[in-house]
């Protein structure tokens, strides 16, 4: 059984249909990439899955539970965390406050503390800057904070939206290394990326999205060799 199962999803912004009936699934332990050009609907899909947007029709199931109509703030406690596009850290809050908000729905203080230490170990820079306001961090550091904040909820699956956007090449590689680590730690990953090459290099499977439809899917390795993918997304 898939951990996350999306079936015939349709999403509209007013009159404009952004997602035109897509289905995909993510199995436990996988790294799945959704790739596609700007405006293909990648972010819309993630926002609909985590309840920030309402779908027009279709079904979203997480661990067998129908979450299609669930409010956004109820999703995280089920074990699904979302690292939004543009990072969206709380700029006026300190790094530590941002991280603690990631654990907002968790109750056990000791467990939260343990997760925090684990995140500090993975992102030492966040510990160095824990009392700094998040808005003063560099783009790459903010991305780390957004990831750390999502991990504070101790998710089973983490959804990442354009984690490499606007980062310097060094940071991009670092971010993808971290995604690999997160996956190795047992968390399932669904990553949306414009950087198709990087995304396909760490994913097990991938879906290619074009103007609201899935046009191609399969093993990431195969897609890397696929001629139309090469032409359209890998710049070869």
């Amino acid at each position, binding site marked *: 059984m898939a951990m996350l199962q999306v079936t015939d999803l349709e999403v509209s912004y007013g009159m404009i249909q952004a997602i035109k009936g897509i289905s995909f699934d993510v199995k436990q332990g996988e790294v799945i990439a959704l790739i596609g050009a700007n405006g293909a609907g990648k972010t819309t899909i993630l926002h609909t899955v985590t309840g920030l947007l309402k779908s027009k029709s279709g079904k979203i199931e997480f661990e067998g539970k129908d979450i299609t109509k669930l409010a*956004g*703030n109820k999703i995280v406690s089920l074990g699904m965390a979302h690292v939004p596009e543009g990072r*969206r850290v*709380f700029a006026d809050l300190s790094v530590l406050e941002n991280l603690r*908000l*990631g654990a*907002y729905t968790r109750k056990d203080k000791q467990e939260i503390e343990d997760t925090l230490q684990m995140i500090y170990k993975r992102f030492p820079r966040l510990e160095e800057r824990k009392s700094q306001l998040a808005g003063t961090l560099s783009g790459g550091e903010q991305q780390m904070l957004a990831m750390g904040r999502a991990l504070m909820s101790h998710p089973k699956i983490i959804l990442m939206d354009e984690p490499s956007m*606007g980062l310097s090449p060094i940071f991009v590689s670092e971010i993808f290394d971290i995604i690999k680590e997160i996956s190795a730690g047992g968390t399932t990953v669904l990553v949306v990326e414009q950087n198709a090459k990087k995304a396909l290099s760490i994913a097990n499977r991938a879906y290619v999205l074009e103007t609201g439809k899935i046009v191609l899917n399969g093993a990431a390795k195969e897609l890397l060799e696929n001629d139309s993918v090469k032409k359209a997304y890998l710049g070869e």
Partner: protein
Amino acid sequence: MGILQNILEQVINGLRSGSIYALIALGYTMVYGIAKMINFAHGDIIMVGAYALYVGLAIFHLPAVGAVLLSIAICTILGVGIERIAYKPLRSAQPLAVLITAIGVSFLLQSLSLLIFGATPIPQASIVGFDGIKIGGISISGITIVTLIVTTICMASLTWFINKTKLGSAMRAVSEDKGAAELMGIDVNKTISLTFAIGSALAAIAGILYVCQYQSLKPTLGAMPGIKAFVAAVLGGIGSVPGAMLGGIILGLIESLSKAYISTELSDAIVFGILVLVLLIKPSGLLGKIRKEKV
């Protein structure tokens, strides 16, 4: 009495009215921060708070503490109710619709109070029993002392709540980015309700302190302190909690000093003139900031 004592007395008066403005300004600024709207009915919550005190004392014959608690409870429920009924359905509407609704709610509250209590001002004696003190030739009234103590406690506990508690950081998160806050599992609607509750409770306290000073009730009593507190919030930087406190105190001081040394008639003109000046020089207000996008 020496000139120094006189100035000090005016400063203390200014601090008294300024701290009341600050308390009201907090409601404007917190609601603006979280709901991105100017709640023009906020001033009328002050009026409701003052009348509720009167109802508690004169009609239900409650002890002063009971009447104060009744007033706070009524305003809190009213504030939350107004948000639920009038503002929440308009959350994604254009700002002008929300603004007009807020003005409508303001008229509604004033008209209701006119209907229930009539237009004739009702005298309401101060609930502060003691007469005050005299230090070094400066006399400070009882209500001034109570006002300064109560407002200081309110502002200190609010600051602590916003900066040190989990709910407080949730509130700041919602005011910065509702979507991201929701992803953290924060219930945005409840957080907005909580903000209205806190703002309205502070308005009730301000209303009580205000009426204890001026000792008269009328349906429009909230209008002037309301608009001045709004000015204070803008002066301090709308959306900024320390800004509202600072703006309120500064406004009170300017008002009191210009009344005493320049002209009573012109004091309001001076107050609003200074607002215009500050906004010309620093449009975001004294402690407000213009957020820059970071890539």
